């Protein structure tokens, strides 16, 4: 075979083994030293960070469908008092227009940690870390349906076409790992894409390398087309042959794009081993697996826990932004796209959903702390809106975009903080109302980015993740 093509003469696994530095150190001799994912001519150098970051990466626990804030992080004793009474204020139009009376929370709130932060029984494991959380109780959204809500919560705009936060972060900071995408959405079990489709993870008008890769944490084929359909031997033979011809083509064409495309094959070749390896959790200790609930007889809990564990493995390997996806539960819960969406039977549905995610998220925080990663990893927990303080039908809650809770934890976040308030019924944010623009301004700030300076020109306009809005929520900063 063509002996000049040394880099395909090693097997995928051998290559990994030889590079003792791990993924980050896989830069091959003869290749440009640029960071591969950011190596396109038009943004060779990431525009950020603008100042010293507190966090280097983000794990986004997206609660698709909308978690009821009044049942989780925003206790409203008034609801119990007025349970069954009509709303004292006019009810805004709702999605299903099947509005009942005030409904008290079926869950009890307890004060947690030294800070005494009240968190309901829905999230006992997360509650263990109350002193590390900064809960924003005054979140608002401008849209009241899932697809637009998902787009807004991911991109800052309620329609498709704009880059997702993960893409912005990667664009802003570049990647730390040449062999893995910088923005990964994890799925497992029956987890699906939120309403609106994969467009919510889109790179929008940012260069394509910033788009999310959807990774099945427990799948047969973790990433689309990652699995070679032939033996390594055959593939290497082919790649060597191809490399020889490509080399000639490159010399004739002398075009940097072609060179990048050639290097791209090399990366792809390595990813075929790197990606399955990172999903391969056999090397994790039993204690770790147990911590994340992988031994749980509840299939969805184990599956979500696996996402949490793989998320940790991803950030260890320098992935910049990881988003986790909830799985649908059978009874009472929403569909794959919006599993928290309990328009009926909220007690059953939210109960199921919280059992699914609580242990994994709690374990993730515990594990990150134990490994010293918590200090520079930002965890963001949010859905697209909250749920109404009054019932839908007899036992559900409709969408509530006018006031709901999200939380941040980790690098640069002041733990034990409660920011903003909703009214006594939890209907409207009344004090320090916050928007997704504010939230992302804050996230970017923690990553060392000035949200007003992180812009991208498209179609004659400089776009931002925070559109033309956004103020850093200083109260949650450490």
């Amino acid at each position: 075979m063509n002996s000049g093509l040394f880099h395909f003469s090693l097997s995928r696994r051998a290559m990994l083994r030889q590079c003792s530095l791990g993924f980050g150190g896989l830069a091959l001799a003869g290749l440009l030293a640029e960071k591969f994912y950011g190596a396109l001519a038009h943004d060779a150098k990431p525009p950020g960070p603008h100042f010293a970051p507190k966090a280097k990466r983000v794990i986004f626990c997206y609660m698709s469908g909308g978690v009821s804030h009044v049942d989780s992080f925003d206790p409203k004793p008034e609801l119990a008092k007025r349970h069954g009474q009509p709303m004292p204020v006019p009810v805004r139009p709702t999605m299903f227009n099947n509005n009942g009376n005030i409904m008290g929370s079926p869950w009890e709130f307890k004060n947690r940690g030294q800070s005494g932060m009240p968190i309901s029984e829905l999230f006992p494991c997360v509650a263990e870390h109350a002193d590390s959380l900064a809960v924003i109780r005054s979140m608002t959204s401008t849209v009241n349906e899932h697809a637009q809500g998902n787009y807004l919560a991911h991109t800052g705009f309620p329609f498709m076409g704009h880059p997702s936060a993960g893409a912005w972060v990667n664009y802003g900071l570049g990647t730390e790992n040449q062999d893995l995408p910088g923005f990964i959405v994890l799925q497992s079990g029956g987890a699906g894409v939120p309403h609106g489709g994969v467009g919510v993870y889109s790179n929008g008008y940012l260069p394509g390398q910033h788009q999310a890769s959807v990774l099945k944490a427990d799948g047969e084929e973790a990433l689309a087309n990652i699995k070679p359909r032939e033996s390594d031997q055959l593939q290497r033979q082919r790649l060597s042959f191809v490399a020889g011809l490509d080399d000639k083509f490159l010399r004739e064409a002398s075009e940097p794009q072609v060179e990048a495309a050639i290097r791209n094959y090399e990366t792809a070749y390595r990813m075929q081993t790197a990606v399955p390896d990172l999903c391969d959790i056999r090397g994790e200790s039993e204690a770790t697996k147990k911590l994340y609930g992988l031994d749980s007889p509840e299939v969805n809990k184990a599956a979500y826990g696996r996402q949490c564990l793989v998320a940790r493995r991803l950030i260890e390997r320098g992935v910049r932004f990881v988003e986790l996806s909830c799985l649908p539960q059978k009874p009472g819960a929403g569909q794959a796209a919006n599993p928290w969406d309990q328009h009926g039977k909220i007690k059953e549905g939210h109960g199921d959903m919280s059992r699914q995610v609580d242990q994994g998220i709690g374990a993730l925080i515990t594990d990150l702390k134990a490994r010293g990663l918590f200090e520079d990893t930002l965890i963001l927990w949010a859905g697209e809106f909250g749920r109404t303080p009054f019932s839908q039908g007899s036992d559900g809650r409709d969408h509530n975009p006018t006031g709901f809770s999200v939380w941040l934890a980790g690098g640069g976040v002041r733990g034990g903080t409660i920011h903003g308030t909703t009214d006594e019924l939890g209907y409207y944010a009344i004090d320090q109302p916050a928007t997704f623009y504010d939230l992302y301004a804050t996230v970017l700030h923690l990553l060392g980015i000035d949200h007003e300076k992180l812009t991208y020109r498209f179609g004659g306009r400089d776009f931002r993740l925070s559109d033309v809005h956004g103020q850093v929520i200083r109260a949650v900063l450490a």
Partner: protein
Amino acid sequence: MKALPPIFCAVLTAWSVCAAAAPAPIAPEALEFFENKIRPVLAAECYECHNARKTKGGLRLDYRAGWQKGGDSGDVIVPGDPQKSLVIDSIKHTDSDLKMPDKAPKLDDTVIADFEKWIAMGAPDPRDEPPSEQASKPTWADLLATRRTWWSLQPVKKPAVPEVQNPASAAQPVDRFLLAKMEAKGLAPAAPADPRRFIRRLTFALTGLPPTIEEVNAFVAEASSNQPSAVRNASDRLLASPRFGEHWARHWMDLMRYAETHGSEGDPEIREAWRYRDYLIRALNADVPADQLIREHLAGDLLPKPRINPDGFNESILGTAQFRLVEHGFQPIDTLDDQVKAVDNQIDVVTKAFQGFTVSCARCHDHKFDAISQRDWTAMYGIFASTRPAQVTIDTPEVLGKNRPELERLHAQIKAGLADAWQSAAQTIGQRLQQAPANATPALEAAARIRELEQKIADLEWNARSAIQPANKMDRPASTAPAPFAVWSFDQDASDSLGRMRGYLEGEAEIRNGRLRLDGQGAYLRTDPIPVPLPARTQEAWVSPANLTQRGGGVMTVETTKQHGFDSIVFAEKEPKRWVAGSNYFVRSQISEGPLETAAPGEFVHLAVSYGTDGTIAIYRNGVPYGVPYAKGEPLAFGSGDARVLLGWRHKGAGNGYFAGEIEEARLYDRALTAEEIAASYRAGPGAAISSQQVLAALTPAQREERSRLTGQIEKLRATGHPTTNDGEAWARALKNADGDVTSPLHLWAKLGRVKDSDFPAAWQKLAASLRAKLADTRQFNRENFRPAWDLAGDDYAKWFPYGIGLSKAPRRAGEFAVETAGDRVLDGLAPGGAFTASLSTKHGGLLTSPRFKIESESISVRAAGGGGAMVRVIVDNYPLPSNPIFAKATLNNDETGWVRLDTAYRKGAMAYLEFGNRDDLTRPLEDKSKDKGKAPKLPDGRSFFSASAIVFHDTKEPPREEPLALLPLLGGTLSRALPSTANVQGRAGAQPSEPQSATQLAELYQRVIAEAVNAWRDDQLTEPQRALLDDLVRAGVLPVTLPELETVRPLVAEYRKLEAEVAVALRAPGVLETVAYDAPFLPRGDHLKPMATVPRGYLEVIDPRPYQTALSGRMELADAIASSQNPLTARVTVNRIWHWLFGRGIVPTVDNFGRLGEKPTHPELLDFLAARFVEQGWSIKDMIRFLVTTRAFQMSSAPAPRAAEVDPTNELLSHFRVRRLEAESIRDALLAVSGELLLPMGGKSEINAPRRSVYLKVQRTNLQPFLQVFDAPKPFTTLGRRDATNVPAQSLTLLNSPFVIEQANRWAKTLIASGGDSPETRIRRMFAQALARPPGDDELGAATEYLTALAQDRAVPAGRLLSSEPVWQDFAQSLFNLKEFIYLR
């Protein structure tokens, strides 16, 4: 900030103060210079931040003393010394910390030069006094004055072609322009490209496909003798290829954010959006001038002379589909917000695509940089917001009006015949009433019993029929005809008449008149599994295609159920109008030489395909061979129960494999028939496989006895004298029902018909009084609770907007009716006055919309009827997709007129209009899968109808009560106005009757009143009570309404039905409707909840400042403004796009932005030269492409010319050709083309996945095609004139591991192996030629041979078998797909 020495600052400041105190007089020329060159720029660029209110940096620039005082960082203007003036540094962007204007592009070099000159002049400035806060804010007029001087807004002036030093190397004007710039930099153009590379470049650029080996060779041969002529010929050939339109339509689709769904939750379909894609392909292939195309995109529905397609539809309307390709939110609560976003997107796309201007940026504020105000945005918003989304009909009036005069004539004759028959019937009504049984129950029971017995006989015979042995089943005229294995004759049902396999109708398939009717849109018949393996087979069918333009529909298929394999008689799959023996991936298919099909609609042709065990396949049409028999591929094999028959569908999963037409009979044989047998079968013709005599003969004695027993019982029942005729039964039923129904006109008789004369007057008085009171109460209730909105039977109809051939210009008179298209009944009932779409055909479309109004009531009720999925909807803020309960709408699924309430409480305060529409005229019908299933079934041929007569507003939860008006003619009296539908009802024409004194007189009264009503109907003078009366009697069937009762009408109806069957099913497409327009309010900061004063509709002030005067939306005026040679942008933007698509980079690289945030043209004179030429040549896109590809520039090598890399590293001067990656679609298409899989039928519904050109793949917003997305296909949300070409590992992973790519490698290998070849080397050469359009170099050949040898070793393939080893060649094929050269163009 640049630091100035403090002393220097102090000196300057002192000087400034001094100067401020005593301004020197300004010379007139200096004053003029300041006023013309400096003041406008200061106002437009600087005042906003440096004024009384916002003294950014402590600096004011809005009057002289302001800048004389200086800013926080000292002095900014040093009169007389531009070099020391900070302002010059800042506007030149020499200091990275201080770039002015802030967050804006650098000022034009000429402007900077003006400032330098001005400062050098001593900075003369007449602005003595500080302006007021208001005045120092730059006005829009100030800004516009400056901004309108921007280069792209200047008129296009055709420049002279420049002189060059070396004219020999640049004969073409384009090359002169390019060369002039190159020469200025001491560059020369690169050498010409290798001819093979050039033809690959040209073929991909024009058609998006690789050239074939033959095309390459032909070109190379021709080019060797005459390169220019070879290039011209190749360009002409490719421009004439249908593939050209497919490729360039995709470019255009990028501009129009083409998608077939609206996105968001549920991702609802944009119905028939693919027709717009096909329109583009046709238009580009036909070289429709670009100005015409643009005009059609804006106002194609309004053109006085639209383009008419030879197939009989209006092409121009299809352009307006682009307005409908917007995203919509999912069932938005705030619909106005959704509308603002959608219209903003329309503005964005139109202005970017055609003007290279970003008007959408001015939604919330005046544009930051360009000559676009927020008022401009609002003026355009008014145009588009006034335009209603709709499904529009694109057929010409001629097509839609097929048989219309004849149908109208027949309709009138049928009406006259009915009136005659009813008049006669009326004469005997008194008698009929008198004879009516007192108790109808026994008669009705007898009738029911008879039906039961008849059913039993039918069951008995069916069992016997199924039991008939196949051996003696045939009863056909020619005894030589072969015996089939199974026969579908459709005499009874969908099952095989020989009883082997039951059949099931799917989709809208139906059996009528002994034929299977297939709509080509999902209708088909499938059978139970074929019980035995059929290694040899014959498939046979008598079939009539509904049209000959359809493609790829399967008539009769045998399909395996376990794996993907099928054999099918397919119409026009590979070639138009030609039959083919279709098979999975064409493995057993071959293009036949049979004649093109010419069968007229309704004409049946006989087709048979025999499949031998040896793989021989023979096709026959009308008994004669259709091309020659051939053997290809392995015969389709399946075991018992592993296959089934499909009629009307090519195979499961074939998106557009449905056949439209009728099948008279289909047969399956268990062997390959001979040519003689097939000819005999053709001659024998289709026929019932089993005769009734055979069935009788097949009955067992016991069955025969049972049958005669049942027959006897029926005869006995008939003999009892019960009125068991249809007519008698109808009377009995009507009177029985009337007894308990106080609204029925027969109620009086049911209650009083048996009353003794002596008791009658009192009984009459009592009943009449009670009924009158009831009527009065009902009317009072209606009057009190409902506010009349529109009376569509009256003048209000003129305020509404009827659309579609089914709707008349004026309201229809009461008593309109539809002739039933099948069955015994001639008509169903009589419609009230108003709108009615079905008076001639339920195929006729109709969409009726109201004026725009504000919803102020909790409910709206409409008096309407409808069927076939017709709906009434309250369209709020033009949101076209309501499906949730929070949108008021209702399916009209009642033949009989009644009130339907729409709950509008949720939408109070919103602007809305009402819409009545037939199913296919709706932007989103409620699908059958909804809970309405069964209630509103989709009918074949898109049949649907509605009638509408009145609309009321109310706040109650119940709709108006039905007024028992049908009684009124009998009770007498006149009623005052109540609701619109029943306005001023009069009891009876003529004088008041006296009250009946006996049952006999009552019968006479009936007779007289009905006769009067029939006369009034005949004369079109029917009052609403009379209509109600007749309608009741017609529906009850007590007036003659069935064919057996109507001798004279019968032939008319037969003729009517025949002609009606020929009425075209309208083609619909996404489009827009004009109704009445309104000006939109100005939205401060874009907030739609805070509307301010309205802005007249119009276009950008900088282009055309006149407000539009039209009562319509203004799209026509807009089209005139944009598709104009006077518009400075349109031609420039369009030629620049063509340049970009050919050369990979525009003369203005930011192809969608010719504003200040865009890049400036690298060759402005060339751009103008091309724009001017484009207009001169009639906006011909093909001419421009031909002009450009025949330049030397397009034919240059991609190898950089000497010095190019240092002088012009980004190749702005185009001294060599730009290497670029193929677009996503071309990569996919090239894979398919090279593998031999690519199918080239054009147009039609989109496919989810098919080996067709990628342009035909469905674009679903929330589920975009992964393969195409990986290679940067656009996300359809706005105009994208310049695609990215990213490098991401997902691309490599796709080409390495995706099943699609591997499959193509496999198919290519198979084809190569099948075609033989004498050595690996010839095959390698062939593969290089196919994939790369060039032969391999010696080194490459060596490497390839080495690689193949290694592969053969790995796979243990002996050398002798190498040429036939599929795995080896598949690996090698994929290696060529993996070459960068495969996906790059140079």
